[in-house]
């Protein structure tokens, strides 16, 4: 069954916003205008877009080092995100966090964590809160294939399982943790064998197909809202850039493999599909693209206009009031 047109256009717009945002960030990192470690989400847009489309602001997400896409899809303010990445005062974390630690609690985005696997236990707490409140809200945690080898991952699955938490585990399997292949690092082979062992409902989807992600996530999140316990979704995808954006780090992945995945671009293939189906007329597609580009240009203008924090601001927020 075909998704309604509004959903289709919405999924596309979210993916494109992430893509344009990340293209801007990559350019600015390579030009030396953005400092620090920025992990690009380019190539994985369909995962965040397809999952978050089902969430309301009352639902919570927990993200990882590769978190810009999750933030955008959850509805974080792109102006304040952009300002944060530049270390500006009006950034969502007042310049304290930067690219790796974006959070927007106002939209239920509980923060990106730079420690591999560390978001998983935190997400169990967010899910327990949702369960205790009893309002059918849910939590979602995004993590990579590499995180599945940390103890915290296994402990979190077990905890979510025994407490029947309304928690969706979204594993973005991009095949590698830095340069280490998942096929080497994971004894289980198929990742879903692990949630299976913990008796957690699970599925694997083509993570570059936004509608496949959308449908699988929708079914899982409905289960969560019905109180049937946690679900696990493996999304097979690929990152286009080096582990973090830098000219100085090695990419040991096969060149042909990278090229093949770029052919399967989640954003471009979906645009083609929408045109073919007639969901969007070419003119409508163009105006949507222009709208998204303007949003990113405006975000940059906002970030550029924002001052740096004062040095002494370093002392603020160590404790809350």
């Amino acid at each position: 069954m075909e998704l309604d047109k509004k959903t289709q256009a919405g999924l596309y717009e979210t993916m494109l916003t992430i893509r344009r945002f990340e293209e801007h960030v990559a350019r600015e990192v390579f030009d030396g205008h953005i400092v620090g470690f920025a992990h690009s989400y380019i190539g994985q847009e369909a995962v965040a877009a397809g999952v978050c489309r089902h969430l309301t602001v009352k639902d919570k997400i927990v993200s990882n080092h590769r978190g810009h896409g999750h933030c955008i899809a959850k509805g974080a303010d792109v102006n304040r995100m952009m300002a944060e990445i530049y270390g500006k005062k009006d950034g969502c974390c007042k310049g304290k966090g930067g690219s790796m630690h974006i959070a927007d609690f106002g939209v239920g985005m509980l923060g990106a964590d730079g420690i591999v696997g560390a978001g998983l236990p935190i997400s169990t707490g967010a899910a327990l809160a949702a369960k205790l409140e009893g309002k059918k809200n849910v939590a979602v945690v995004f993590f990579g294939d590499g995180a599945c080898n940390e103890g915290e991952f296994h402990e979190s699955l077990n905890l979510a399982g025994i407490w029947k938490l309304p928690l969706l585990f979204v594993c973005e399997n991009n095949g590698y943790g830095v340069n280490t292949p998942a096929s080497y690092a994971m004894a289980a082979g198929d990742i879903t064998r692990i949630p299976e062992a913990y008796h957690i409902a699970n599925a694997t989807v083509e993570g570059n197909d936004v509608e496949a992600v959308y449908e699988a996530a929708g079914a899982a999140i409905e289960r969560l809202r019905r109180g049937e316990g946690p679900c696990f979704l493996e999304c097979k995808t690929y990152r286009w850039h080096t582990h973090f954006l830098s000219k100085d780090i090695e990419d040991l992945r096969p060149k042909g493999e990278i090229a093949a995945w770029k052919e399967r671009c989640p954003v471009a293939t979906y645009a083609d599909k929408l045109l073919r189906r007639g969901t969007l007329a070419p003119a409508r597609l163009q105006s949507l693209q222009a709208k998204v580009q303007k949003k990113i240009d405006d975000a940059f203008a906002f970030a550029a206009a924002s001052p740096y924090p004062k040095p002494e601001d370093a002392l603020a927020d160590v404790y809350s009031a």
Partner: protein
Amino acid sequence: MREITYDQAAGEAIRETFRSNPRTVYVGTDPVLDMQKEFGEDRVRVTPIAENSFVGAAIGLAGSGYRTVVNLRMATFGFVAMDQMINHAAKITYMFGGQARFPVLIRMTVGAGFFGAAEHSISPYAMFMNAPGLKLLLPSTPYDVKGLLKTALAENNPVISFEPFLLGKAKGEVPEEDYSVPFGHAAVRRKGSDLTVVALGRMVPEALAAADDLAKGGVSAEVIDPRTLVPLDTAAILRSVRKTGRLVVVDEACQTCGAAAEILARVASDKATFGKLKSAPARVCGLDVPIPFSPPMEKFAVPDKSKILKAAKGVLR
């Protein structure tokens, strides 16, 4: 003499040891292709991202007769392995009555100054100073990192090497011939008579730059680099302070309960040295905050030459 980088020098220490001792194993999350090629994938092992487990595996290997090198990369990832390092590596020799030896070398980078934000920017060696049973290195030059790692790789105890991230690409003279640097021997980086500056890790070059500036104003500063925190060469520090009567301790880590606090305490509690002090000693440390991302705030939070100069002037007044 040839010049190589800090990271290259560290790599040489490990490779030379692996050549001479076949009962050596390396573990870390990143493939080290040249080492894998030379020593084989049995001995140079890529691990999943599972720090607590691979540090534990290293301890088990060590207790079973294999000298083991662990690369944790950044101290921040090391926190995931705190259980194995503190509950086990530090205590295992003692707790089991010295029955076995645990020759494990654990390396991790420390420090701030590269816009890594709060999680990735930290210098936690003082936490480990509080866990007896570990020997702790804080090399500040390519020569020292190679020499200290050579000693570590002949040592029969768990050793942690804290290597300032920003020094990795720094170049320095390293001899071709074999040498080692003993633990517990501070280096006097610059001789002086008016003021002692004890500087740790990445603060050593900052302190030397400050000493150059002080010299232009007619002040002669002695710069001491302890090189190892456990064992700490207290005698060298006391000797210098007795001579100069003035002390500034510089450390990039947070001030509270840091290595600098320990050094000041050792000076203050040594009667002969305390009596020679001409002014109250000072600390120049990281502020007691997590390291913020934004460059102006980060710069404010970590020590540098100008902050050392300011403290030196205060102590000299």
